[in-house]
């Protein structure tokens, strides 16, 4: 490619006359090189471009679009335009006047006719739990007819319409762009005066769930390290033929369907399952004291440790393979005990593999969904399960998006760290 010539470009005798290096066709070498390098760059990039475009369209854009819902929710202003306008015209703290009550009544009536009152009520319910029914039941009554004065008429239908919290929540909801879902995702809410406060103790769950997710992921990472290190060490020090054979025992679980492995654990760990049977048979426990090892945190921890263990072993193994055994021998010959030699000489050399494995396991554990959903019961649920619940059950998509954004942010920080420390191009599979 370097000596490809371009007949349309005239030769440059000037350059040759000045004694600079030129290519065979007389062009300055530096220029020609730069040109061919630029072309090589372009070619390399063109090879990557289709995939990059594909990933951007089918992956990056969809996630971005989804995350937009975490701060954008037009459910209220779209269906309650008049009262939203009133809020826009009047500053916080203004008492609702006749115009406000009229706007509210008109909006409620229109929304009830258009069968969108449920959407409106649901939106306010996110901020003030227990108020969805205020909207739906008032909507049903308003549909039968409402006469001015609207303030009295609405208060007659439900005295909660006089509650300043409702008005404060409606004001918040009237702006489509809001940070309230992020507040809710960290168990905070806006007080009537607009300041931020913690929600009632019995409604605080997300911070606890994030903590649980990180704590369990840490625990699982620790467990995979404890179990993975000796195995990786054994594999790395055995002769190639034996270690290749044993490697199959690590790779087979890695290649086996996640659902199959989860099912196996359900079969093994349930009360009438294999493990309990063996324990009873061995006389470790009585027939009536079978252990509850599944549908709780224990089940999640055991199954996830098993599933993620290969992700720890493989990077550890590939680093340990490269460690020269003569260092440890040298340490021993200089008088170190085997423990000291291990601690001071061998272990530090495994750190790159350990870092890679631990980060990978932790990143994957933090986002796990299937296994906790199937074996976690209620105490083994992670933040992913909460996102799924808001997606499919409560349909609070903005909340799901806000939780997803927080989870994604933490995963991306770890991923960035991984890239800095290990490099994504060093990721190996099997």
């Amino acid at each position, binding site marked *: 490619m370097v000596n490809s010539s371009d007949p349309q470009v005239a030769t440059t005798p000037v350059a040759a006359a000045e004694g600079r290096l030129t290519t065979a066709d007389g062009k300055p070498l530096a220029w020609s090189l730069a040109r061919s390098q630029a072309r090589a760059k372009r070619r390399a990039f063109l090879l990557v471009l289709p995939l990059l475009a594909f990933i951007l369209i089918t992956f990056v854009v969809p996630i971005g679009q989804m995350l937009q819902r975490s701060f954008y929710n037009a459910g209220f202003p779209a269906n309650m335009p008049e009262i939203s306008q009133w809020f826009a015209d009047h500053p916080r703290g203004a008492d609702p006047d006749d115009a406000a009550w009229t706007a509210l009544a008109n909006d409620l009536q229109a929304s009830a006719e258009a069968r969108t*009152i449920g959407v409106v009520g649901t939106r306010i319910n996110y901020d003030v739990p227990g108020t*969805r029914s205020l909207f739906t039941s008032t909507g049903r009554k308003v549909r039968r007819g409402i006469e001015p004065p609207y303030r009295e008429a609405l208060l007659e239908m439900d005295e909660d319409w006089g509650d300043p919290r409702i008005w404060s929540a409606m004001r918040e909801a009237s702006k489509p762009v809001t940070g309230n879902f992020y507040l809710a995702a960290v168990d905070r809410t806006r007080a009537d005066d607009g300041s931020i406060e913690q929600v009632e103790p*019995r*409604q*605080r769950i997300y911070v606890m769930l994030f903590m649980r997710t990180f704590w369990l992921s840490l625990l699982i990472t620790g467990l995979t390290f404890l179990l993975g290190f000796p195995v990786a060490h054994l594999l790395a020090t055995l002769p190639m033929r034996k270690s290749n054979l044993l490697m199959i025992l690590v790779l087979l679980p890695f290649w086996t369907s996640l659902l199959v492995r989860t099912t196996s654990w359900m079969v093994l760990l349930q009360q009438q399952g294999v493990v309990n049977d063996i324990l009873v048979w061995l006389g470790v426990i009585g027939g009536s004291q079978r252990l509850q090892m599944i549908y709780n945190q224990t089940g999640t921890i055991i199954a996830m440790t098993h599933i993620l263990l290969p992700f720890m072993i493989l990077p550890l193994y590939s680093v340990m393979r490269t460690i020269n055994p003569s260092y440890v021998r040298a340490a021993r010959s200089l008088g170190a005990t085997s423990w000291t030699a291990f601690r001071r000489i061998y272990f530090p050399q495994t750190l790159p593999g350990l870092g890679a494995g631990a980060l990978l396991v932790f990143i994957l554990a933090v986002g796990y969904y299937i296994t906790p959903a199937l074996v976690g019961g*209620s105490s083994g649920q992670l933040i992913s399960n909460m996102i799924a619940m808001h997606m499919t059950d*409560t349909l609070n998509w903005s909340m799901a998006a806000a939780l997803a954004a927080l989870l994604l942010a933490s995963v991306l920080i770890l991923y960035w760290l991984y890239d800095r420390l290990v490099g994504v191009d060093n990721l190996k599979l099997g």
Partner: protein
Amino acid sequence: MRTALILSTMLVGFGLAATAQEVNVVSWGGAYERSQVEAYNKPFTEKTGIKVNMIAADNPATPLKAQVEANNVTGDVFDIEVSDAIRLCDEGALVEIDPADLPPAPDGTPAIEDFIDSALQDCAVANIFWGTVIAYDTTKFEGEAPSMAADFFDLEKFPGKRGLPKTPKRTLYLALIADGVPADEIYDRLGSEEGVNQAFDKLDTIKDSVVWWEAGAQPVQLLADGEVTMATGYNGRFFDAMVGEGKPFEIIWDGQYMDLDMFAIPKGSPNPEAAMEYLKFATSTEQLAEQAKYIAYGPARKSSAGLVGLYQDGETEMGPHMPTNPEYLETAVMDDPEFWADHDAELTERFNSWLAGS
């Protein structure tokens, strides 16, 4: 890549062409789905040539709502509860159904008179009555057997784990009943803050011993596996395990929660005509009675009641297994669709917080 795209586009085209005469029915899975396949789907396909795809959901109302809101409706007919039918109709998610379009009873009684009260809603038509009941494993309790709702909460007298559904609707009422609240005062109590607190306090007493289930087939499985000793679940599923498979279960009819299941069609469904045809066919007198041959749920048409006789084995009387048996109705809590249409979201939220907090 181009070949791949062309091929997959062809594939999609092929897929669409093949689905021209199909209807997708989303129902509750398990034994209930099997009864619907036998009683509705097979005769329907035979009669019309339209293929029926059954899709199982824990509660079909949730995928319905999600599909309509995302403007991505894949199901044609959904089997949902009354409260959800009312709520979703309120939110404009369902197609309205004119009762005049429904087939009359064999004696010519128009559908609107043949269906029992509240079985016809603006957007949905009921097919069956069903109860949520307590069942226990008879091999697990020597001596006195549990007999009332309160026994479910008595871990000392009746040790073992409990199976409960992961929804406020079918747990809070049970806690109140067990706490001595009469069946007809349940909704007044649940409408107040104190009543809800009372229910959660009662649930707290067994929280550590509860295995939560989500799909209707799970409580039966939990009982059969010995994972729990007592569970609440849908009466037809327990019936199927007891009579159909000979499992040693017994049902406690005290404090059953009775509800109606309805067929509804979402707006924007892929096969609206086939969906309507299926709905009309499935809610006809004969088909409703036919279903009672496979599962112990009561038909929603008066004219079907006379046709209900024996279970498919040809010897079991269905009457004593039906939730509509007058004897069981004395302590039954009837579903209040309006209450749940208004309060489901709030109570679910509180229930989930309660559940997640350990």
